[in-house]
């Protein structure tokens, strides 16, 4: 009985970090998260060829390793499945390249813990704290418009890796996309399952490293084509 009460008071928050060749940033990301008292961290090493796995294991977090590189969507799914299995109440997805701030998580999970919504989406365009490069901004805005046409949901930021979801929402959103199309798939599933969601302003730190490691602009077209084929195949 006491345990149940305890669970009610303190939800189990799992941070899921998909990582592919992030040996330079992963340890500082984990350190940052631990500083803000998030100790249930799942790093999904997506078949990295560098030392990501070793560094993550030394950081004393839960590490899952894909034997081959499958893509960010698949890595997120693996991490979320594991978190659900471990009894997570809230799952937060976090990027490994250091562009997200651990201090934003508290703000993000607040509406989920209070059961106001089931999914909280981070948005970099709700305030002006992120110094988004202009070309990236244009592409992201195009993405927002595309999402609006595909699902009829107008968001301020559709391709942000920082999200928080309740256990129920995570069970409903089981990502099928392997690659980067997972961002639009999640929004589609939110719409189909009528999951309550809310956008929360977060800060994206654009460092030289995260820009280099992040999505190459030429890849946007690739993601777009995959999104379209998925949409038509349904």
């Amino acid at each position, binding site marked *: 009985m006491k345990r149940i009460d305890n669970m009610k008071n303190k939800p189990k928050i799992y941070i899921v970090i998909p990582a592919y060749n992030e040996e330079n940033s992963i340890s500082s990301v984990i350190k940052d998260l631990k500083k803000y008292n998030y100790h249930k961290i799942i790093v*999904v090493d997506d078949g990295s060829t560098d030392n990501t*796995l*070793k560094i993550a*294991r*030394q950081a004393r977090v*839960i*590490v*899952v*390793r*894909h*034997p*081959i590189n*499958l893509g960010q969507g*698949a890595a997120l*799914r*693996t991490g979320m*499945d*594991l978190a659900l299995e471990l009894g997570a109440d809230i799952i937060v997805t976090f990027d490994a390249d250091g562009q997200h701030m651990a201090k934003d998580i508290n703000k993000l999970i607040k509406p989920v813990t209070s059961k106001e919504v089931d999914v909280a989406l981070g948005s970099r365009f709700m305030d002006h704290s992120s110094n988004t490069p202009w070309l990236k901004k244009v592409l992201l805005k195009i993405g927002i418009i595309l999402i609006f046409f595909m699902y009829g949901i107008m968001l301020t930021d559709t391709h942000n890796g920082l999200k928080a979801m309740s256990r129920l929402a995570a069970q409903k959103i089981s990502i*099928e996309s*392997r690659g980067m199309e997972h961002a639009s798939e999640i929004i589609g599933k939110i719409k189909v399952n009528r999951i309550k969601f809310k956008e929360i302003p977060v800060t994206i730190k654009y460092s030289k490293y995260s820009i280099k490691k992040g999505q190459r602009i030429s890849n946007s077209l690739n993601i777009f084509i995959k999104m379209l084929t998925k949409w038509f195949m349904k």
Partner: protein
Amino acid sequence: MVYEIEEEIKMIKPIQVIAIIFAIFLLLKAILRLKNKKLTINEFLFWSAISVILIILSIFPQLSNIVANFFGFGRGLDFFIVSSILLIFYLIFRIYIMLEELDSKIVKLARSISLKEIKDIKSLDRQQLKDKINQI
């Protein structure tokens, strides 16, 4: 009609001979494979039907025109090319679906390997875990 056919046979073209030889070769191969039981009866019937059709068409090429006219094409060759393209489209579509299925199977396999690995690690004690980390 008889006269026309005689005319065709008289001015037989090299491609017709090649097609007939190829068809006979195909038929022989099919019979051989049937004898060795490497082909089922259905497969044998399919391949022998194709070679028989090929032989008939190479001896009486104007027959293909009749079929083409029936479907609304001017020439037999047009009909052949269009139906081939349609067939290829269909095959590509099927391959696409197959690849997608294969892809999701690979993802599932890889994921189950990863999750099994973590269960193995969980069962290790502290020292074993340290050794494992050092191994990597």
